[in-house]
């Protein structure tokens, strides 16, 4: 269950992000992630652990939305982009070349955060 540790890392980043907005208190509705298929992350497990971890915290009620990014590689022989398949040992179908250059699929990224300010501070009036 390394998704628990990944969730801890995610919460640390979100806490840092919240601190940058002080004294305003952001109220988060959605955290958007990009998770590649060529990673060791199971998106459903991440959503589950996130839901459990944020209970009772400032993130309670927020939702984790995961966009899956497919594995794509570039064949270094003919430059064409292909989708590597395990059944084919990840080789390129065009030239039967091993998977050398990964174009996408290794993403583990916090893409964006949707939020409002629940205690929007009044603008400071200059004298």
């Amino acid at each position, binding site marked *: *269950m*390394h998704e628990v*540790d*990944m969730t*801890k*890392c*995610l919460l*640390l*980043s979100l806490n840092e*992000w919240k601190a940058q907005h002080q004294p305003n208190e*952001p109220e988060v*509705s959605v955290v958007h*992630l990009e*998770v590649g298929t*060529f*990673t*060791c*992350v199971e998106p459903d497990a991440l959503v589950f652990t996130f839901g459990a971890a944020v209970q009772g915290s400032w993130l309670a009620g927020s939702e984790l939305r995961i966009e899956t990014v497919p594995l794509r590689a570039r064949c270094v022989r003919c430059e064409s982009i292909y989708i590597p398949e*395990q059944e084919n*040992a*990840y*080789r390129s179908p065009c030239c039967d070349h*091993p*998977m*050398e250059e*990964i174009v996408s699929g290794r993403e*583990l*990224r*916090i*893409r*964006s*955060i*949707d*939020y*409002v*300010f*629940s205690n*929007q501070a009044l603008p400071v009036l200059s004298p």
Partner: protein
Amino acid sequence: MHRPLEDTLGINLLAANQHRAEHNREHFDAWRLLCINVMSSPGAGKTSLLERTITALAPRLEMAVLEGDMTTQLDAQRLEAVGVPVVPITTGRACHLDASMVSGGLKLLQQRLDPAALDLLWVENVGNLVCPAEFEVGEHLKVALLSVTEGDDKPLKYPVMFREADCVLITKIDLLPYLPVQVERFVEHVQQVNPRARVFLLSASSGEGLGAWHQWLLEQVAERQLASDSGPEPTTNVQPFPALVSR
């Protein structure tokens, strides 16, 4: 009125671990040592190999081990017995080491010795082919072991681990005569998911193939010391060697 806002971050999910790993690496570079993260499934032979390798290289290199183990200190005791300083890191239920656990291990190590006197620091990870691949600890090189008894399909089933490795060791080759496997298939499958990996075939039990692996380690330590002397880390981690197989 509450205006919905959106902040685009684009930061790594594991940024918190990444920052600590980079911090560890800065220490390693300041100490002029090479740190190698050793990973494999349970029972692939990490500890047996380290016993042999540390014994063989002890006259040439100063070494220490950070030993990850879920609940016991059995592996740490085995390695202490070959005469090298070992700091056990019991991870509890966590199935991998992360950068902060290694940082804790380094503090304990510093109580026993000056790390600047070391040439090579081994981090023996928890036996697991999944999680350790995603959690950097600050290592310069990742070495993955695959024993011939595990089956040649493992690089295809656990591709991220073998893709991330700088070097893959096919171990227990002394057992090949008793197994219905072809060692070429292991190498082929590793090179399909990672054509850049350096591959060695060896047996910690018979000693076959250890010479080439040890030679490679000595070269890596020398290269690292040169790199540490010439200032900040270059940004590329592309390995300069071609995909060679040594036996």
